[in-house]
């Protein structure tokens, strides 16, 4: 490869492919370099995509994309070792088309096909090792012995920012800024999934599970229903396992063996085991997103959001890829690839939901680092219901029962109110 491209994109995930799609569609020569030999084979997430950005940019996706099920039921579990309190939201209306479950590998393959159809070149099996940097200007990428020149480089390498870290292009990733997600995929007949969750063929379930799944560490469990699969996993902030003395591969297993999960997974079998980073930075990404000749998009830019109730990444990736493409198209017209020209990317991001929502929830990681959320409150809720529902001739009224179980957990009313206030202020 000695040809020069208008744009070289590092990484064929949702953000890189979206950028490539819009750039090629508007006539630029685009190459997308992907380290995996099969498109999508290094992409991992929990299981759900919010469709608002797809409605806007790929309205045909409802017919084309590999959608597994439309999320119809949202569940929140508070779990102890052997019990669970479950909160469920169900609505029989347009809410049906808010989000859907999908296998990310297949979704990326669909998006890749669209990018190729517009003329973008996807080179699979190419690991980008470095960038061509001349006097502080990025002029292309280096992959092994090959140098590939490009007027613009888009870094879409994902949450594990090896390239950016090695080149000192961003502040070093600290363990408390990322979480590790470990996921297991189970095959289970769609009829059984429908029966167990009370849904019909194209209706799905998304669940977040708090407490026992992360073994009391900062994090939680997730569960999504696909057509014939269930994805189940645990996400834990990366500084927690060593501090708490828990091994990630063990807690995933303990979660799977929980009596509630065992009943859901009965007769299923595991077909894949995987792991990936999740960004939980909690502050707006700094100026590292733009430089002379390059832009950073998607999870590499820190565009992921966990509010404790809603977990998102793909919609942020697609939006940032689209904005990066718009910025480069404009800069290319003016023949300018300087940092100043590309800084319009940041301006446009600030106007978009990407920065608006990250800004609105910037205090969420701090709130979610309150360990009582993962220890005391799941225990409290479970013992409250256990106590309240016990019938033995002694009257159990709501308030006195609550005070009793709070006292048992050594939680004062003041403490609980302050934590509640913290939630209201941050999420």
């Amino acid at each position, binding site marked *: 490869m000695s040809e020069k491209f208008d744009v070289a994109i590092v990484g064929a995930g949702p953000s890189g492919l979206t950028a490539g799609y819009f750039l090629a569609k508007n006539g630029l020569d685009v190459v997308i370099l992907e380290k995996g030999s099969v498109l999508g084979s290094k*992409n991992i997430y929990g299981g759900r995509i919010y469709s608002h950005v797809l409605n806007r940019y790929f309205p045909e996706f409802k017919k084309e994309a590999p959608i597994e099920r439309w999320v119809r039921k949202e569940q929140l579990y508070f779990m102890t070792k052997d019990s669970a309190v479950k909160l469920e939201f169900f609505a029989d209306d347009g809410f049906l088309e808010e989000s859907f479950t999908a296998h990310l590998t297949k979704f990326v393959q669909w998006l890749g096909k669209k990018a190729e159809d517009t003329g973008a070149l996807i080179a699979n099996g190419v690991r980008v*090792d470095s960038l061509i940097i001349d006097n502080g200007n990025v002029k292309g990428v280096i*992959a092994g012995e090959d140098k590939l020149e490009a007027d613009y480089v888009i870094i879409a390498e994902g949450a594990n920012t090896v390239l950016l870290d090695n080149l000192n292009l961003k502040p070093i990733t600290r363990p408390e800024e990322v979480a*590790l997600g470990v996921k297991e995929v189970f095959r289970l007949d769609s009829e059984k999934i429908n029966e167990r969750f009370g849904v019909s063929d194209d209706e799905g379930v998304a669940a977040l599970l708090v407490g026992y799944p992360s073994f009391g560490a900062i994090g939680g469990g997730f569960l999504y229903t696909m057509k014939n699969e269930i994805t189940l996993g645990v996400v834990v902030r990366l500084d927690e396992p060593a501090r708490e003395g828990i091994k990630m591969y063990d807690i995933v297993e303990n979660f799977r063996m929980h009596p509630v999960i065992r009943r859901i997974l009965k007769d299923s079998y595991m077909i894949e*085991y995987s792991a990936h980073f999740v960004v939980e930075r909690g502050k707006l990404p700094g100026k590292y997103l733009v430089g002379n000749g390059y832009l950073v998009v998607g999870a590499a830019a820190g565009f992921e959001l966990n509010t404790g109730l809603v977990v998102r990444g793909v919609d942020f990736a697609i939006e940032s890829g689209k904005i990066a493409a718009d910025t480069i198209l404009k800069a290319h017209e003016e023949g300018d690839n300087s940092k100043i020209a590309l800084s319009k990317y940041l301006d446009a991001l600030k106007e978009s939901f990407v920065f608006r929502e990250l800004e609105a929830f910037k205090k969420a990681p701090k709130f979610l680092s309150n360990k009582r959320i993962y220890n005391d409150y799941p225990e409290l809720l479970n013992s409250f219901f256990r106590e309240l529902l016990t019938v033995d001739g002694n009257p159990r009224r709501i308030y006195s029962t609550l005070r009793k179980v709070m006292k048992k957990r050594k939680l004062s009313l003041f403490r609980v109110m302050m934590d509640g206030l913290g939630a209201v202020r941050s999420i």
Partner: protein
Amino acid sequence: MSSIEEKLSIEERLSLVIFNVDEEPHIKVDTTKCEKCEIKPCLYVCPANLYTLDENGKLQFNYEGCLECGSCRVACPNKAIDWNHPRGGFGVQFRFG
């Protein structure tokens, strides 16, 4: 295929994953730095249990079976782990993602 009625060892779980192992290791560990490391987060974070201690308490590691999450790289407090993605086309190949 593995039934979920029983516990599944990490080896059984990894046997479900497709790997195209590169002869050239993509992880290199300077284990002399590990000797003075008290917490050794790598032992806890690695989802494939590739970091273990031998009977003398010396750190052992294996790059085969790596799920390429990058956790050890970021969690290591002593920068003892030189981590890169496997060369293009090598490494883990997920089918579902």
